[in-house]
């Protein structure tokens, strides 16, 4: 394998001199710089003292979170905003275990992360030493791969492989666990130029035969439908998807993870499908005769787990980079394993147009005539109105992050995203407390963008300690707390499925979020009606630094439409209202 010296020229000694040696932590730092890392998120501790010592000179920007979970979600937000791996550093034991939720979140949504943990020295591993945790063992099910580095000489190769694995194929989090003696050990340093991993060669080119079969199926289809997911965003295939959808003349529905992968303003778009999806998207799924899934995994929030009622009359085409996704949840008529962008580039060539004019008309009519509705109010602030206001005031130009729950669904419904990587949400794991730190990472990645963390009063309290970070480093994230003084989605389920037995969902005794923000040195506003909301939001947007707006919304609002678990997509409970 070709290798080169990557140390600065002046440090290279003549060949008869011994090569300069570096500590493991210095080597790690050099590897990260070599990988083009701009910022690392982290939190120091005993086992990473050598690593933090190497960061002392400031060769690499480091953001000190207030909790390792904040750091890993911020790294995740950075990764989702840019497509580049996010990097997080934590110490052994509790530092490492505090990363677990963040790694699981990234794994479920296929987000590239490189998570670096310190561990106790190798002679102490297995002895239940102070701050020892078997983090490679703990995270095995929630990482794409993991390394326990036992020899400093392996470190450059491991870092190179970790970045490659995290960001290629179907991306995901990779853990590098570095015992303290390895960080301190000395070695010469060469960064490998190439990476070869025998057991890891993701297939990116689609099979031509399957593309031909896809063309035949399109030519025969009268009711084609495209179901596009997060894979479109990951692959950067939005232009190819638009061209493909227009050429074959098919409506497009985007999953939660796919929002922004196809413009929400496009005439072919019919909203999100599934449990809280649009009438048009769900009925198109029920009635289509050709379903083309692109970078999706047919999750149970889309199919409702009722395959007997899901696209039963359709041939299913499945395009995905991960062969294991094909046939996992639904039977596939045409499997296309490959990079979504490359596959669509091939698929769009000489693709026939489906005989789908009547169908397009039908689906678009559903979309027009069965819109999302809510009952607006002049007395109470309605959460849907707030989300729509955020959209209108930012021209859809913002990067929006969310946690999980009602506010997440309302953003998905009422903020039609125009561009990929503008919606950052915990889709698969559904992690409360994800959105705010993720917004911090996204804002660092895109300093010029308006980054809005739409969160709930529940989720915000899980990670709002990161207000300290945005205040101290003046990261201008705008936090929109959709404050309904309860755990809204749990409350909604208790209302509908547990006879209004509201068990432990009351958050009315939460702290005053305005005072809380101010205590951290962050400007904050409260709004209880539309006029206050407009004024507060306007001032928050105009404020050059971070801001928190506490939108006190109606507490009994539910997310509609809704498909009850166990029901099929044909059993939608539609919302009431006139908007």
């Amino acid at each position, binding site marked *: 394998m070709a290798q080169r010296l990557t140390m600065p020229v002046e440090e290279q000694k003549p060949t008869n001199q011994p090569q300069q040696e570096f500590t493991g932590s210095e080597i790690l730092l050099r590897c990260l710089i070599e990988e083009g890392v701009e910022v690392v998120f982290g939190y120091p501790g005993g086992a990473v003292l050598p690593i933090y010592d190497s960061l002392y000179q400031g060769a690499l920007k480091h953001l000190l979170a207030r909790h390792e979970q904040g750091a890993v979600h911020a790294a995740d937000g950075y990764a989702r905003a840019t497509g580049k791996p996010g990097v997080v550093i934590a110490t052994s034991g509790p530092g490492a275990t505090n990363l677990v939720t963040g790694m699981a979140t990234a794994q479920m949504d296929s987000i590239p992360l490189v998570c670096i943990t310190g561990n106790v020295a190798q002679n102490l591993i297995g002895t239940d030493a102070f701050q020892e945790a078997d983090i490679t063992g703990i995270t*095995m099910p929630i990482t*794409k791969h993991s390394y*326990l580095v036992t020899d400093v000489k392996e470190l450059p190769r491991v870092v190179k492989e970790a970045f490659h694995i995290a960001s290629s194929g179907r991306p995901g989090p990779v853990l590098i666990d570095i015992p303290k003696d390895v960080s301190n050990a000395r070695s010469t340093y060469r960064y490998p130029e190439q990476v070869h*991993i025998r*057991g*890891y060669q993701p297939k990116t080119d689609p099979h031509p035969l399957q593309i031909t079969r896809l063309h035949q199926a399109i030519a025969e289809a009268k009711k084609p439908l495209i179901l596009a997911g997060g894979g479109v965003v990951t692959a950067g295939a939005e232009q190819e998807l638009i061209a493909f959808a227009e050429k074959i003349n098919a409506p497009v529905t985007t999953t939660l993870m796919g929002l922004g992968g196809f413009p929400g303003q496009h005439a072919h778009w019919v909203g999100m499908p599934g449990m809280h999806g649009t009438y048009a998207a769900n009925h198109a799924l029920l009635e289509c005769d050709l379903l083309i899934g692109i970078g999706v995994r047919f999750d149970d929030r889309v199919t409702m787990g009722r395959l007997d009622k899901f696209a039963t009359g359709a041939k299913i085409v499945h395009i995905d980079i991960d*062969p*294991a996704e094909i046939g*996992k949840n639904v039977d596939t008529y045409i499997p296309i394993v490959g990079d979504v962008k490359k596959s669509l580039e091939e698929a769009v060539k000489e693709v026939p147009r489906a005989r789908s004019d009547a169908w397009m008309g039908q689906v678009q009519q559903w979309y027009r005539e069965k819109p999302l509705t809510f009952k607006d109010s002049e007395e109470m602030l309605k959460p849907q109105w707030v989300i729509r206001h955020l959209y209108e005031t930012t021209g859809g130009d913002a990067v929006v992050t969310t946690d999980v729950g009602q506010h997440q669904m309302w953003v998905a419904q009422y903020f039609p995203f125009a561009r990929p990587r503008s919606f950052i949400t915990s889709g698969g794991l559904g992690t409360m407390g994800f959105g705010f730190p993720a917004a911090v990472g996204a804002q660092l990645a895109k300093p010029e963008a308006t980054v809005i963390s739409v969160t709930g009063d529940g989720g915000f309290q899980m990670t709002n300690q990161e207000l300290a970070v945005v205040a101290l480093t003046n990261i201008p994230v705008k936090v929109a707390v959709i404050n309904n003084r309860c755990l809204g989605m749990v409350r909604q389920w208790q209302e509908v499925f547990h006879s209004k037995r509201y068990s432990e969902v009351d958050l009315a005794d939460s702290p005053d979020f305005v005072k809380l923000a101010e205590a951290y040195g962050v400007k904050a506003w409260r709004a209880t009606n539309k006029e206050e909301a407009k004024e507060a939001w306007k001032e928050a947007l105009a404020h050059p630094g971070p801001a928190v707006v506490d939108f006190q919304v109606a507490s009994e609002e539910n997310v509609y439409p809704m498909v009850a678990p166990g029901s099929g997509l044909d059993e939608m409970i539609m919302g009431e209202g006139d908007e």
Partner: protein
Amino acid sequence: MRHIISVLVNDQPRVLARVANLLGRRNFNIESISVGESEEPGLSRMVIVTSGDERTMEQVQKQLHKLIDVIKVQDLNEHAAVERELLLVTVGASSGTRMEINGIIEPFRASVVDVGPNSLMVQATGERSKLDALLDLLRPYGIKEVARTGVTALPRGATKGVAVHVGN
């Protein structure tokens, strides 16, 4: 249906944990796993006996392939394969029953590998069903301890790229 999956893996620390962890969390059955050296230095061969319908078996193979340390996955049900397991069993034996037990194990081509005052240790190899049958026959004499290796297997007559099927 029962399947024997042969997996070539990097001989790395924790590779058995990775495989077992994956099978466990995806809710796949494990009848047995055996692991040892392979023909290539640095690689181990793991033989997993599992069961499930066609979709499950496809998922087992595809999910195993996703592990970075997995080099090759082969479903031996798609080949003619030789399947063997080693059984050690200590069975109660008095001077009066030793000859009887010898008579039972002889058709199984099993052998006595240790003799105690009141017991015999029998070693047998073969397919799982054969070993089960042997144990059933020995049970009336009092089985004291059993150790089984789990199944290991190789495709018949197959060298790389060429599969020659001899017999069944």
